């Protein structure tokens, strides 16, 4: 015989409780959809106005003109793209070594007690608003660091950086060539290997020519300049480089370090020959994210790069210039309605779209590298 039966109705919860579940579930769906809506709106608003610009502007005039004067209808793109690259380059020269060095120290050398003080200090730096760095770059870095760089100092620093770059590239090229000779590169990747060496060589040539050019036209400047703003942006992204690199090194299992130490390696060899190569994907990701952040940084450049709302073309870090971001802020600053000839307003969105696409691709590439680290360990 059966124990007293239970009906389906008895296995339901009170309607009020069930309805509450449904209501809450759908409210949460709505909140999640807001984020989708936001992305859609960003892309849509950018594309809408940018499209007007793309179809309306005379493209021949966006290259090789005197400068970026959006209110007068002059849109020379190199005028805002080249300074963006200079700022990013200067920022990475500052933040790359400092951030990576700090990360290696924190991850491999610092004892827990020191770490517990140093990490929060870096986090404090990470929390400093960019307007504060802008103030610092203009009022302190410009006169005290950039203003003191003489023609000779610039040549020495420039040559040292070029040599360092050449040494690293030569190392990479030699490794690729050896792999090629040994047949370790499969045929499909050969073009890539050759291309990457070619890119390294071309970048070196460009950088060398640029350094020489700047050196020849060198004029000191202790007011706002691209260099001052670049150093400011560099300080801003140090914590970013440090924290992402350190996360990558923390993901390297201790067993690798112990194995290395067990073979008699010293801490330095362990760090450079075992930990850094194992964490390389994460470190590359850190640099890419930092580049993306530096390109997108607005306020430091707007305040300290020494240009008003329009600018002539410059390729010298010691002159004032306008980046893509600063161009947008300049055009909109001090006014609640952007007006000017023809496509002035739309030019904002065109620059915004460029910036969006550049940072988006960099971030996507960076997240590929990060997931490589996750897969490995």
């Amino acid at each position, binding site marked *: 015989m059966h124990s007293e039966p239970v009906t389906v109705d008895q296995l339901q919860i009170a309607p009020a*409780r069930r309805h*509450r*579940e449904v209501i809450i579930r759908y409210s*949460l*769906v709505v*909140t*999640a959809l*807001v*984020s*989708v809506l*936001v*992305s859609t*709106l*960003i892309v849509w*608003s950018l594309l809408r*106005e940018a499209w007007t610009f793309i179809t309306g502007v005379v493209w021949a005039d966006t290259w090789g003109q005197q400068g970026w004067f959006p209110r007068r209808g002059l849109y020379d793109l190199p005028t805002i793209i080249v300074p963006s690259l200079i700022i990013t380059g200067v920022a990475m020269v500052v933040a790359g*070594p*400092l951030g990576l*060095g*700090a990360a*290696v120290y*924190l991850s491999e*050398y610092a004892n827990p007690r020191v770490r517990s003080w*140093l990490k*929060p200090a870096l*986090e*404090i730096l990470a*929390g*400093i*608003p*960019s*307007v*504060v*760095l802008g*103030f*610092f770059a203009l*009022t*302190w870095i410009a006169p005290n660091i950039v203003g003191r760089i003489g023609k000779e100092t610039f040549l020495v620093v420039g040559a040292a950086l070029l040599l360092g770059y050449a040494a690293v590239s030569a190392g990479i090229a030699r490794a690729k060539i050896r792999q090629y000779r040994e047949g370790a590169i499969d045929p499909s990747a050969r073009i890539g290997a050759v291309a990457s060496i070619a890119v390294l060589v071309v970048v070196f040539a460009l950088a060398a020519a640029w350094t020489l050019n700047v050196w020849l036209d060198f004029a000191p400047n202790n*007011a706002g300049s691209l260099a001052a703003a670049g150093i400011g942006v560099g*300080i801003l992204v140090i914590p970013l480089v440090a924290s992402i690199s350190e996360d990558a090194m923390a993901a390297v299992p201790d067993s690798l370090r112990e194995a290395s130490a067990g073979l008699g390696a010293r*801490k*330095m060899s362990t*760090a450079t020959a075992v930990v850094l190569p194992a964490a390389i994907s994460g470190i590359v990701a850190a640099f890419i994210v930092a580049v993306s*952040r530096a390109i*997108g940084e*607005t306020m430091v450049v*707007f305040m300290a790069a020494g240009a008003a709302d329009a600018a002539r073309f410059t390729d010298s870090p010691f002159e004032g210039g306008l980046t893509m*971001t600063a161009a*947008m802020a300049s055009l*909109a*600053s*001090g*006014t*609640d309605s952007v007006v000017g000839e023809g496509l002035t307003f739309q030019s*904002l969105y065109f620059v*915004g779209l460029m910036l969006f696409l550049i*940072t*988006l691709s*960099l*971030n996507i590439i960076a997240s590929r590298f990060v997931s490589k680290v996750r897969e490995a360990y």
Partner: protein
Amino acid sequence: MVSRLVDDRSRAAIAASIERRRVDTRGLLFKVVLQSCLLVTLALLAVLLVTVALDSTDQLGTRLWDFLQGTLRSRSSDESLGIHQGMYGSLWIAVIVAVLAFPIGIGAAVYLEEYAPRNRLTAFIEVNIRNLAGVPSVVYGLLGLALLLNGQIFGLDRLTGGSSALSGGITLAILVLPIVIITSGEAFRAVPMELREGAYGVGATRWEMIRTQVLPYAAPGILTGTLLSMARAVGEAAPLILVGAVTGRLGENPGLFDIGALDDRFTALPIVITSWTVQSGRDDGFTAAAAAAIVVLLVFVLMMNSAAILLRNRFEKKRG
């Protein structure tokens, strides 16, 4: 026997090599280089803080109260120069961010972590949110400009009064939304499966389980994320410039809690700092004013950041 095989000369050589290796110059140098990377970074931070503090004494040391209550002026020597309008804007922007971004962000994180099926759509939304977090802040300003000022979409400009603290607050709420979602999501993922099962096991519904187990356990993590994003929002300037924050032609100082001024022309502390810094080339007295405004801003931002860091470290330690 072994000692016989090793003659005195080689023994000396071995001893010397051991001796030499004990002082590992290269290793030491390497460590010093690494240390100096960190020290240079921290020194820059220290110089920054000291410079700002010293510059600010001209204003804060002599007329702190007047400075806090004063208004934006075109000359730095003006008796009534101050940051009241900036504080009003920043305060209300923070309130709007808290009211909009926190519930929506936490809600979205609850949905994505606790309800959403693991399918391509969910994965797409998550990737999308991560990418949103990397979009430069100035681009959010463009969104605010198109959405809230120009009335191109839904005619929202009539609601926000165009260029206003309300528009600025909504723009920054959109800006920090991905950060809130990501940090809350991480906090939810840290909630142990055993707690969820325990609640389900005695007949809790999904929401009851979330309300009584997930949210309380994740509360410190959520709070950390919200504090960090609040600090970020209060320090942002670029999007506000795009949505028309100004430093001239502002109305009379509104009372700090006067909601009526929310749809008027507006400014915020970072905008005041930017404007004064840029003007310092023309009128050197603005350097001190900008530094003083920075001190006020940093007090709030660093307080929120430190609270977040302390909170996180405490709970990390507590929960192992």
